[in-house]
C-alpha cells in the first residue's frame, strides 16, 4: 500500500451495503494529488455511492477512507471539509431564485460569518472575486441575472464559478454533464479540467461517456457491481476492456431475467 504524502485520497477495503444489495464491495486504491480521475461503469454500478462516500455524505459500513491525510470520520467540521472537498452535480445545484452573483458567492460562505452573509444579500461582498470567477467561466455579463433563467450549460458554469471561490483541494463531480447536449458537455468538461489544472486541484468525476473520459482525464477507473473492473492510466485503456465492461453487463442482465 502506498503511503506517500502525495496521495490525496486513500481507500482501503471500503464497503457499503444497501439493504441486501452490495453498493461498494471492499474497494482499495489511492488517488494522487493533481490526478484527473474519471469513474465509468454501467448504471447502478456504485459510482455515485463512491463519490458520496468521498463527500462524507454517505458513511461507509466498513473500511478506511483518508482524505488529504485525515481519516474521513474525523472530518466532521463542515467549514473545514469545504476547504478539502467541493461538489458539483448534474443539475439542481443552484438556488434558481437567487441572482447569479449570490450563487457564486455561496462558495465563500465557509469563511463568512452570519452577519456578513446577511449583508451580502443586500450589498454583495467580495464582488470582485465573484466577477473574476465569472469572467473565467465566460459569464461576466450574467452577474445580475436570475439563475433559473440561465440555460443548463450556463448554470453548470455558475456552479464552476462557485467552486473557484470555494477553492477546495479535491473536486468531486457527479455526472456533471449528464443533462447537457454534446457541444455544451464538451465545453463544460474542458473548462472544468482546465480550471482544475490551473488551480492545481484533484478532480474525480463520474461519467457515462467513455469518449469524454478518454479525452479529458488522466486516469480511468471502471466500476461494475460495486467492484473495480479496471483502474488504468488513460492510454492503457483498450477498446476490448471497455466493451467487456458494458458487454458483461448485458450478460448478467440476461442471467438475472
Amino acid at each position, binding site marked *: 500500500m502506498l503511503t506517500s504524502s502525495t496521495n490525496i485520497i486513500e481507500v482501503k477495503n471500503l464497503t457499503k451495503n444497501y439493504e441486501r444489495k452490495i453498493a461498494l464491495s471492499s474497494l482499495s486504491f489511492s488517488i494522487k494529488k493533481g490526478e484527473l480521475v474519471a469513474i465509468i461503469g454501467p448504471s447502478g454500478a456504485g459510482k455515485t455511492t463512491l463519490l458520496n462516500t468521498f463527500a462524507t455524505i454517505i458513511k461507509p459500513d466498513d473500511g478506511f477512507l483518508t482524505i488529504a491525510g485525515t481519516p474521513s470520520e474525523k472530518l466532521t467540521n463542515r*467549514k473545514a471539509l469545504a476547504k478539502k472537498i467541493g461538489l458539483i452535480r448534474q443539475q*439542481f*445545484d*443552484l438556488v434558481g431564485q437567487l441572482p447569479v452573483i*449570490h450563487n457564486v458567492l455561496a462558495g465563500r*460562505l465557509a469563511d463568512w460569518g452570519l452577519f456578513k452573509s446577511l449583508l451580502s444579500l443586500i450589498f454583495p461582498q467580495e464582488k470582485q472575486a465573484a466577477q473574476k470567477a465569472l469572467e473565467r467561466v465566460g459569464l461576466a455579463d450574467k452577474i445580475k441575472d436570475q439563475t433559473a433563467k440561465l440555460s443548463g450549460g450556463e448554470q453548470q458554469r455558475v456552479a464552476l464559478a462557485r*467552486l473557484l471561490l*470555494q477553492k477546495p483541494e479535491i473536486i468531486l463531480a457527479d455526472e456533471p454533464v449528464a443533462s447537457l447536449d454534446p457541444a455544451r458537455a464538451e465545453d463544460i468538461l474542458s473548462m472544468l479540467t482546465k480550471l482544475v489544472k490551473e488551480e492545481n486541484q484533484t478532480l474525480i468525476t463520474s461519467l457515462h461517456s467513455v469518449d469524454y473520459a478518454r479525452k479529458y482525464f488522466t486516469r480511468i477507473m471502471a466500476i461494475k457491481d460495486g467492484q473495480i473492473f479496471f483502474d488504468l492510466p488513460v492510454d492503457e485503456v483498450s477498446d476490448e476492456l471497455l466493451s467487456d465492461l458494458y458487454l458483461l453487463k448485458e450478460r448478467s442482465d440476461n442471467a438475472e431475467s
Partner: protein
Amino acid sequence: MLNLKHTFLLQRKNILTIFLAAAFIWSLFAVTWSEDLVHSGGLATIKQVLVALIHPNLSQEIIQLAIESTWITLAYAVCGMTLAIVIAFFLGIFASGILHEHKGSKLISKGIFRGILGFLRAIHELVWALIFVAIFGLSPLSAILALGIPYGGILGRIFADMLNDVPKEPIQALRSSGASKLQCLLYGYFPLVRANIISYTMYRFECAIRSSAIMSFVGLGGLGFQIQLSLNDLKYDEVWTFLFFLIGIVVLVDSCSVHIRKGMHEAKKGFTFVTFFSLLTIVLMVLSWGFIFIFEQASLKDLLSEKNAYYAQKFFAGLFGIGGVEQPAFLSSESWKEALKLTYETLRMSVMAIGFSTIAMFLTVIPAARNIADGSLTLIRKWYYWLLFGFVRMLYIFSRAIPELVWAMIIVFILKPGILPGAIALALHNFGILGKLCAEVIEDLDERPVRNLASSGASKSQILLYAVLPAVMPQFLMYILYRWEVIMRTTIVVGFVGAGGLGQQFKMSLSFFHYTDVTLLLLCYCILVFIADFISEAARKAAK
C-alpha cells in the same frame, strides 16, 4: 377476501363520496323542516334586502363614511398581518425542524412548534378577540393581537411545510460548500420559498381583511361596525354600500396577488410591479401602524398596566373556576351533557353548510371554468357561454368577499335562530371560495382526453361524465374536505349572532360572566376542531 380488499381499494373514492353524501343527509335531520323556520316578516325582509341591493345608498355622507371605514378595516388587517408574519417567520422555522442536525431534536422541535402553531390557528380570531378584550379592554392592540395570532398560526404552518418541501439538492450543495445552517436559510431556503410564501401571504391577507371587518364584534370600528349599525337600523341600502366597498378591496387585493405571481415568475429587471408592490407594502405598513398608534391611541404601556394584569388574573381565575362560588361547569356532568349536545349540533351544522355549498358549487362550476367558456376544452362554443361565465364568477366573488358573520347577520333577520341560518351563512360564504377553487381545477385539466372524447362524438353531458368528472373528482374532494375543516372553525362565530350551536351559548356565557361555562365550551370547540382536522386528513388520504 383479497378480492374484497381489492374492490375496496379500487372503490375507496366512491365509498368516500357515498359516505360524505350520507353524512350530509344525516345533517339535514338536525332541522325540523317547517314554515316555522322563517320569521313572520321574513319574506318581506328578503324582498327589501334585494331591492336595496339594486339601490345602494350612494349619498356623499355614506360614501365618505364608507371610505373612512374601509381605511380602518384595511389598517387593522395590515397591522394584524405584520404581526402574523413575524410569528410565522420564527415559529415556522422551528416547526420545520431544518435547523436541527439530529433526528431526535428535529422531531422534538417539529412536534412542539407544530403543536403551538396548531393551537394558535385552532381558535378563531373572534374568539381570540373576545379573550383579549376581556383582558386588555377595548384597546386597538387587542384586535391586532386577535388577528395576528391565528393568522400567524396558519402562515407559520404553511411556511414550515414549504421549508420542508424545498428540493434537497441546492441545500446539500450549499452545505458542501461549507455553509452553516443559518447561512443555508439565507442562501437556500428563503430564496427557494419566497415566491410561494408571498402569494400565500397575499391570499391570507385577503382573508385578514374580512376578519378585520368582523372585528366590529369586539367594538372595533370599520366596515363591519358600520354594517352592523345599518343593519340594526334596518337600512339595507347602506348595508350594501358598505358591502360593495368590502367586495371592492377584496377584489383589489385578489388582482394584486395575481399580478405579483405573474411578476415574480417573469423576473424582469428594473422597476417592475414587484418593486412597486414591495414599496407599497412598506408604505402601507408604516401608515397603518402610525394610524393605530397616533389616531387610535394604542399604547403598549397601557396594555401592560397593573389594571390589565388584575383583569387578566381575574379572567383566567374565572376561566379555571378559581375563587368562584359555584361548581365549575367543566366539572359538572350536567353541563358537559348540555355542551356535548351543542357540540353535536354544531358538527351537524358544519356538515350541512359544506353540503349546501357543494351542491351550489356543482350546479355552477361548469360554466365558471374559463376553458369551458371559450370552448377550448369541449370544442363546443355558444354565444352565451361568456355571459354565464361572467355571471357565475361575479356570484363567486360576491359570495366569498362577504364574511360568514355578515351573511349570518343578514340571515337572522329572515330565519329564526337555530342551526339552519348558521349553516346557510357558512354555505353562502364558502360557496364562492369552493366555486373558485374548483373552477380552477377544471381550468388546469389535461385537455387531450376530453378533446379526444369530444371528437369521437360524445355529447356535452357525456364528456362531463366520462372525462371531466373522473379527472376533477379527487381534487374537488380535497377542497371540499379542506373547506369543511375551515367551516368547523367558523361555526362558533356565526353562533355569536344567534345562528345556533356552540357559538351562541359561548357568547351568552361570556355576556353573563359565566366564565367556567366559557372554558367548557372552548374545550368542546377545540375537541371539535381537532376531530375535524383528523377526519379530514384521513379522508383526504383516502381520496388520493
